[in-house]
């Protein structure tokens, strides 16, 4: 019994020990609860509220772009894309491949989609933000994802407004396009205003008017559950949509110009000389803008980039061509306005020009020459010898300063950020760039628009606008109005833009008429270089052809266009306006390796004039 009692006592002791341990453990548990619920209560209360509330930015709708007639050039359309929130996937970020494989069983996801997704996954981003995996889902695909939603945690179908260009081809060099914001762009954008914006203007008008088109971001405070689903909107500040802008661009004319250049390499720029508004701006070959909006595949991109036709190259704004004979009217004006050349100055043209007896022969385009040539005939028949002569008499200075007054060598368009100024070879330019002085031969080349001089098609059109306007300048620009408010100068928008040169006042105003008359002769005269293109028109045209040499033809070498490889053929150029007395449209045409300006470029201009002046009246 003693053992039994001993055993009992030990058992009772251990029960007390258990009570002690229980009290101790309960004490620990209660202390823990007091710590969490009393001492740290404020902290956890804040965290719980943060958990629940989310401030969500709402992207504004991007402003629309219309042409001068109110036709939509750039709109927005809803597309559905499937996005992943990596943090919410089964298995978290490391579960990405498994979820993509799962999705691949119900919708098509190609290697490029995955590559692009992984690239974005590596970029800096907010936690719990979604990353698009595939764009432009069709309705079937949306349905398939929705049906399987239960198994696809962290996978969402998101609707998004993305840019859409109704005229996919032929407008991209005029409008530019929007594309996904990259890291570098993000750094320079207002992070708050762009917090929900995925696209930004990359080129052209879309880029220049980014701040007008974008609008102001909105916000909503929402209550969400742990899966990020919005349960309730607590507060909302509506976004301010971007401004709609209207361009001077005429969609029909633009399309017509693009058609005219189809299959060719070149550019057409048309300007309304009464406003300076750009009516058409085409560079050929072109490419579709819509493929850039949601991200072009690198395969397609390198195809564009590596094409020897250079479709990505904006010839209208950046193509530097020798203007050739298209500058002759300006050179002639420079001569007579400075008084260095008499208005009735004439030469006897043997078909070549020599600086010194027995020296190098500077050839005229016409073998045997034009006979007796005065200023009028020199423009109508584009007599090179006449310009060698007066160019030699003038030298660099008056020629370059008059060319500058017509906008060469500088950017004058207000709202095309990519435009180049090309080269106006002043003496100081030659010293700085070539480290050489100006030689008499340079003046000869300059006088026929060859040599160091180069100009973009846009500059040629601008020069011709000033010529047509008898020296009056307008700021050349794409924009016509913003939200219905007329924009006559970019200054109104409070931003810097290229300075518009001053109007040109000639000593004698009748000199304009003298040159205009000669330019009408080019189109309608019996010997005019573009008489075939001027024939049978119901309105008068003023113009000037140009044929730019691509390579130097050696002295005494016979030139045979057929033998020269296509790429070595001359560029055909034409500038002009119509109607001649009351200019409504100015056009510059450049056809690369098209041959002569009168055969390759002038006919295109004529058809454009017809389209603008005649067909528009019908419609």
């Amino acid at each position: 019994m003693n053992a039994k009692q001993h055993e009992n006592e030990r058992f009772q002791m251990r029960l007390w020990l258990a009570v002690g341990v229980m009290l101790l453990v309960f004490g620990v548990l209660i202390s823990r609860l007091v710590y969490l619920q009393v001492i740290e209560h404020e902290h956890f209360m804040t965290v719980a509220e943060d958990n629940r509330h989310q401030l969500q930015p709402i992207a504004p709708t991007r402003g629309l772009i219309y042409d001068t007639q109110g036709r939509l050039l750039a709109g927005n359309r809803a597309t559905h894309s499937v996005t992943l929130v990596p943090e919410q996937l089964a298995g978290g970020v490391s579960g990405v491949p498994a979820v993509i494989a799962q999705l691949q069983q119900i919708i098509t996801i190609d290697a490029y989609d995955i590559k692009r997704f992984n690239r974005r996954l590596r970029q800096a981003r907010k936690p719990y933000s979604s990353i698009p995996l595939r764009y432009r889902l069709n309705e079937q695909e949306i349905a398939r994802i929705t049906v399987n939603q239960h198994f696809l945690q962290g996978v969402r179908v998101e609707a998004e407004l993305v840019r859409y260009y109704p005229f996919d081809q032929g407008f991209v060099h005029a409008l530019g396009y929007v594309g996904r914001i990259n890291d570098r762009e993000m750094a320079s954008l207002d992070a708050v205003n762009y917090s929900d914006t995925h696209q930004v203007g990359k080129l052209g008008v879309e880029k220049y008017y980014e701040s007008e088109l974008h609008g102001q971001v909105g916000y909503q405070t929402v209550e969400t559950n742990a899966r990020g689903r919005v349960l309730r909107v607590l507060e909302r500040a509506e976004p301010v949509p971007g401004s709609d802008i209207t361009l001077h661009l005429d969609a029909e004319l633009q399309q017509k110009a693009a058609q005219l250049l189809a299959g060719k390499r070149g550019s057409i720029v048309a300007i309304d000389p009464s406003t300076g508004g750009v009516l058409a701006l085409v560079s050929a070959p072109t490419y579709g803008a819509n493929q850039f909006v949601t991200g072009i595949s690198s395969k397609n991109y390198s195809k564009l980039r590596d094409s020897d036709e250079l479709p990505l190259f904006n010839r209208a704004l950046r193509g530097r061509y020798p203007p050739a004979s298209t500058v002759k009217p300006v050179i002639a004006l420079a001569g007579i306005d400075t008084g260095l050349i008499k208005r009735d100055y004439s030469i006897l043209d043997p078909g070549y020009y020599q600086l010194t007896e027995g020296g190098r022969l500077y050839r005229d385009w016409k073998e045997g020459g034009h006979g007796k040539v005065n200023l009028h005939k020199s423009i109508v028949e584009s007599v090179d010898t006449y310009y060698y002569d007066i160019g030699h008499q003038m030298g660099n200075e008056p020629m370059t300063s008059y060319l500058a007054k017509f906008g060469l060598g500088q950017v004058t368009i207000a709202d095309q950020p990519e435009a180049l100024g090309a080269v106006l070879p002043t003496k100081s330019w030659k010293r700085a760039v070539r480290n050489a002085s100006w030689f008499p031969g340079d003046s000869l080349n300059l006088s026929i628009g060859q040599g160091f001089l180069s100009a973009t098609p846009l500059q040629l059109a601008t020069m011709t606008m000033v010529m047509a306007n008898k020296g009056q300048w307008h700021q050349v620009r794409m924009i016509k109005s913003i939200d219905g408010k007329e924009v006559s100068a970019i200054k109104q928008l409070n931003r810097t833009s290229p300075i518009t040169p001053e109007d040109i006042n000639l000593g004698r105003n009748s000199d304009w008429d003298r040159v205009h008359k000669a330019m009408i002769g080019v189109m309608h005269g019996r010997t005019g270089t573009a008489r075939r293109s001027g024939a049978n028109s119901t309105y008068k045209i003023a113009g000037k052809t140009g044929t730019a040499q691509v390579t130097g033809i050696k002295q005494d070498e016979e030139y045979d266009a057929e033998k020269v490889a296509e790429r070595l053929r001359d560029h055909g150029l034409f500038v002009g306006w119509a109607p001649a007395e009351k200019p409504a449209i100015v056009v510059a045409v450049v056809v690369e390796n098209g041959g002569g300006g009168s055969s390759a470029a002038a006919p295109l201009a004529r058809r454009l004039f017809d389209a603008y002046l005649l067909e528009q009246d019908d419609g």
Partner: protein
Amino acid sequence: MADFQRFVPDASSFLRRGPSILARSRIDLWLLLPVLGIMGLGLVVLYSGAGASQEAVDRQVLRYAIATLGMLVMAQINLREVERFVPVFYLLGVLLLVAVLLFGVGAKGAQRWLQIFGLPRFQPSELLKLAVPLTVAWYLSGRASPPSFGNTLVAFIIVALPVVLIAKQPDLGTAILIGASGIFVIFFGGLLWRYVVLAMLVGAAGLPVLWTFMHAYQKQRVMTFLDPESDPLGAGWNIIQSKIAIGSGGVSGKGWLQGTQSHLDFLPETHTDFIIAVLAEEFGLLGVLLLLFLYSFILLRGLIIAGKARDSFSRMLAAGLTLTFFVYLVVNIGMVSGLLPVVGVPLPLVSYGGTSAVTLMLSIGMLMSIRAQRTSKRLRKVR
């Protein structure tokens, strides 16, 4: 009369006047009332935790009814009379565990269920929650106390065999609970302190070995417990969110059905393992203290029954079952409040789910039976 009993009021003294209905039904009010209180509170919280679901409450009431019936039946059984069937029960349980490993069905990478033709599928590990303390008590009660080294070793093997089988399923939470229940019975069976120390040393030395045998997800849980912020969206999420739920509840809570953490799905498993976080968020510290108060009644009553039990089998069993209940409680609350690693242990009598409630109520039925056995002897003596 041992010291322990002298300090405890004799709750059944009023029964001496003659056996009442209560006494004849062998029901112990001191156990039943807190159990009913916990169930009532549990249903209120469950309604909220299950997303204001009447259906969940209805099903839980049905389970409670079945479990209470089981408790009543268990209370009628004289455990001493069925003692000889205990090893059979144990062996059956172990065989079923082996069957689970061989033919079991499971979810989330663990095989825990057994689908026997014609029967609803069940977890054999639940049987062992009762079988292990019963068997150890049966084995040690017939032997000298304090138990010899050999007997102690056999007792440990009785515990270890099912624990290993369950840990292999893998179901770490249940394995720990069953292991604890067996070890408590051995402890109350008079295990010598030197063996206690030895067991602790072996345990400490065994930890690294155990680590190598653990599944990747189990290691992950331990790592997460040590540093939940290391994986705030993965394994650490549950703990972080449940701490936020508890902490944001404050002293008086956000009000019933007003918990943002639980109702906006930040908190995981709001109606099962993490239900106490819902209680803490909506009813605050006061709500949790009320629940702990009710639990402590059951624990105290269980120890009193153990202290008053006549034979060593009954008292070992009573004390072992009570401490197992306590471990349940502590592991669950410790896990939800971030004091212990996450192991899947439900909150006793509150978490949604059938099997654990039935097992727990059966063990409470055993406690009632042990108390009634002692009283009925005394009644017989008085007569």
